[in-house]
């Protein structure tokens, strides 16, 4: 449980961090370390150089701008959970953050670190996919935006290129009248989701007008359950609709299977959790 030798830098500006990252092929960014450090202690990851973003003040903020909430990559889960702005304008994200790990993890772990790590069972992506969030990627040569759906390539694999740092997450402001819920059933040791579901539901006069449903922990990467969404829109908001739609929770998805949950169980869990999250959301009006 002792990591291999590494160098450690704690730059105070993003440009310095980018310079360090570009100058050392062995370097890896440290953004809270709640996944990376355990992997290093098991020597599953042996980066030669850690560049800690914790001392870059510009990466820790929550701001509203142009119809979206911008969240700095180094904003902790606890900050996301408790931010008045996020609670008001992107409530699903705050609800989801409250489910991550435990208090200690939420105090150290960051939204940028979590998104870049791309754990297939992390909580954030279910919410961020349902909210159609985007991420900002910055390198020495420029910056670009990417939708979270394209950013998450596969388990532990993202669009991030060498020399790039994820600096912000952009979440569109919640639409008026949209109801949200996050539900998860976790593996008791790790606290990671065996099936986590983020739901956004718009209902007008008893008819579903808008639906976004995303799942984590079920497949090799978190995904939007578009078949569920399609089965919802235009239907009457109610138990039957929710149950029928939830049956599509894993359409086209190869469910993960491990010692904690078989694929069969995950498929069941996904449908149950989607239905219940829809009911939670509908009931939260």
């Amino acid at each position, binding site marked *: 449980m002792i990591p291999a030798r590494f160098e450690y830098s704690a730059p105070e500006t993003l440009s310095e961090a980018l310079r360090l990252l570009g100058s050392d092929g062995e370097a890896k960014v440290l953004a809270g370390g709640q996944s990376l450090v355990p992997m290093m202690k098991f020597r599953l990851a042996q980066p030669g150089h850690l560049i800690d973003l914790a001392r870059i003040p510009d990466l820790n903020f929550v701001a509203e701008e142009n119809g979206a909430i911008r969240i700095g990559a180094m904003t902790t889960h606890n900050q996301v959970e408790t931010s008045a702005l996020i609670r008001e304008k992107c409530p699903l994200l705050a609800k989801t953050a409250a489910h991550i790990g435990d208090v200690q993890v939420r105090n150290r772990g960051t939204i940028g670190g979590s998104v870049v790590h791309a754990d297939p069972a992390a909580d954030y992506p279910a919410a961020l996919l349902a909210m159609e969030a985007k991420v900002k990627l910055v390198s020495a040569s420029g910056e670009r935006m990417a939708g979270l759906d394209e950013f998450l390539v596969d388990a532990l694999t993202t669009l991030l290129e060498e020399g790039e740092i994820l600096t912000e997450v952009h979440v569109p402001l919640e639409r008026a009248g949209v109801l949200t819920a996050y539900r998860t059933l976790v593996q*008791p*040791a790790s606290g990671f989701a065996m099936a986590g579901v983020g739901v956004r539901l718009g209902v007008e006069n008893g008819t579903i007008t808008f639906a976004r449903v995303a799942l984590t922990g079920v497949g090799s990467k978190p995904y939007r359950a578009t078949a569920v969404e399609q089965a919802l829109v235009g239907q009457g908001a109610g138990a039957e609709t929710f149950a029928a739609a939830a049956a599509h929770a894993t359409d086209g998805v190869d469910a993960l299977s491990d010692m*904690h949950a078989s694929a069969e169980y995950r498929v069941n869990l996904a449908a149950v959790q989607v239905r219940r999250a829809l009911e939670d959301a509908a009931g939260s009006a």
Partner: protein
Amino acid sequence: MATTTTTPELKTYIGKRVRRVEDPRLITGTATYVDDIRKPGMLHAAVLRSPYAAAKITGIAIEKALALPGVKAVYTGKDVAAVGPVPCAGSMEDLRIPDHRILARERVYYVGHPVVAVVATDRYIAADALDLIEVDYEPTEVISDPEEALKDGAVRVHPEYPDNVAFTYKQAKGDVDKAFEEADFTCEERILVPRLAPIPMETRGVVADWDEGAKELTLYSSTQIPHLLKTQLALQLDMPEHHIRVIAPEVGGGFGSKCNVWAEEALACFVAMDLKKPIKWIESRRESIQVVAHGRAHVDTIEIAAKKDGTLTGLKLHIVCDIGAHHQLLTPIIPTLAVLMLPGLYKFRSFKASLVGAFTNRAPSDLYRGAGRPEATYVLERIVDKMARILGMDPAEIRFKNFPEPAEFPFETVTGLQYDSGDYAAAFHKALDKIDYKACREEQKKARAEGRLYGIGISTYGELCAFGPSPATPAGGWECASVNVKATGKVEVLTGISPHGQGEETSFSQMVADAFGIPMSDVVVIHGDTAKVSYGIGTFGSRGIAIGGSALHLAMQDIVAKATKYAAHILDVDADTVTFKNGTFSSSAAEQTLSFADVALETHLCRKLPPGTEPGLTATRFFEPSNFAFPFGAHICTVEVDQETGETTILRFVAVDDCGKIINPLLVEGQIHGGVAQGLGPAFMEGVIYDEEGQLLNGTMMDYAIPKARHMPWIETDRTETPSTVNPLGVKGVGEAGTIGSLPAFVNAVVDALSPLGVDHVDIPMTPQSIWRVIQERSRS
């Protein structure tokens, strides 16, 4: 000079919820654990362990590791051949004890088997050096499953033996076959009791320090048994025992895992003497889960016979115990405790039990909180519940029906134990009342009508504690206490027990304060240092207060007797007229009174030495119990099972425990809370998983689940107090009660919830997935 003092209003402590005196240093980070110890020139050891469950070692290349700057030495099995084998206490006639060396030699037998030790200037270099050692392994066939291991022609873990039988053990009384023939009903269940990793918050760790001039070896070890360890080290290292000192500094939890003599302890000592440098070794969490003896590890088959009125007449048990590849200190003894405690709280007329220890290519198993008794209680309480269902009886009724009456104590069980005292029905009634059992059954009816799975689980348990009478223990079951009263009236207690969370610094101080009429802050309790305390057996088997406290009680009696003589002499009255109450010596024949401190001073100044009396006020006493003590209780829990996810929600948990007389209810409740958590773990989430190749699949805290705060129900505790008759304090012990009592209540509750589906048993851990599968199967059939 003796002076007259007025006695202030005295505070008494016994029976009060006194806060732990240990806690301030623990919660402010000022306590000293092994890893806090630093010695000049200290080197750090790390251990390379086998990645294979079974392999021949064909070569070990250490050159690259030795070449790493900072590496001071590398040891293989050959280099430490002078160190004797890791000890095992066990006395079965057919017991096979394979040669268990502190580092592997020709073969490795389990994943995690220590192979090479590296010593370096810091622990980071030592860890890096492990990656540079090349061991050539020639993997051999693995036998991982204990039942498979016992089959004819199974691969042999130790090729020198004809099969994998490590030992056998049988007990029987009465005509059990006849009981089964004549029974109105019989039933049987095969019950798995998985391996559990003890997971103390502090992993194991040692610092060995060799004094070349004095030829003295000091070992700091996170151990529950410093004195026994010292004796064993003397044997393993072939050293005079009086040149060895073992210190257990602050010990961050043990749960039995540190009631052992570990290879790494002798290893560190050997290396320290070889290099003439202090050596530190701190176990990693991964090593801890991998190799620290797992508990339980049973496959049990239990059968029960009953009359139609619910009278339980016969019991049969067959245990296959997966002992792993090697024995640790108590490996063969632990499952025999399951046999002894098999009858629980019930009046069986006959029984038959057989036990086979199976060698497997897995880490050794050994004691873990409860040690044999949770296994017995679990299988018994499950089969009694199953029988009640068959009889159409309420599970509470069948239990009441078979308890011995209070007048029947001391009660001899069918396994030959003498239960000291008990009123089982009283504790059970209290628990039933507390949870409002009738209302729970009503709630269940309502829930079932609504299609909800609501269950009520009962466990009435007994345990054998306060280890124990010496003839029944492998290395003495007594305890020793010294009380040294200082000139200033302050009191130093030296005890042979070795608390590591139990709180005896608090409870012993309460006892002393009350006995001498002094404030608790005038007492210090010293333990865990073989150079300070003459000898002791240690802390395990819920024995601290029952045995150690009883020794203290005797020593305090001696102190009072001697102080009374002094007081009489100073007051110039007949000793018979002197009474000692609330810290004051007084006599009907004298106006003057003396405080405890007054007399303490006089015993040191000796200006007026009573004839035939020696100076000083100290006493050392030993306590040898006449028998074990037998706590008992009733745990009841209500649950609701989610049919769609298999998740169980614990609605209420009531624990009524009787651990005899209570010194400090706060400590008792703490023990119950922790114990219940360690029953909840195996019930719902815990269990070491090996695959067929003997690989440990859930060897990290990311995969091995233990209960977190959010998993815990609110625990409603209550108690009855039936004093023990086997020690002067009337205490019984409470360290393991929660673990023993709770598990069957959880499982019985879930089975009760699932019973409308025709379920009469589910194995643990009852994870959401496993319960969901049961529901799916039942719904299909």
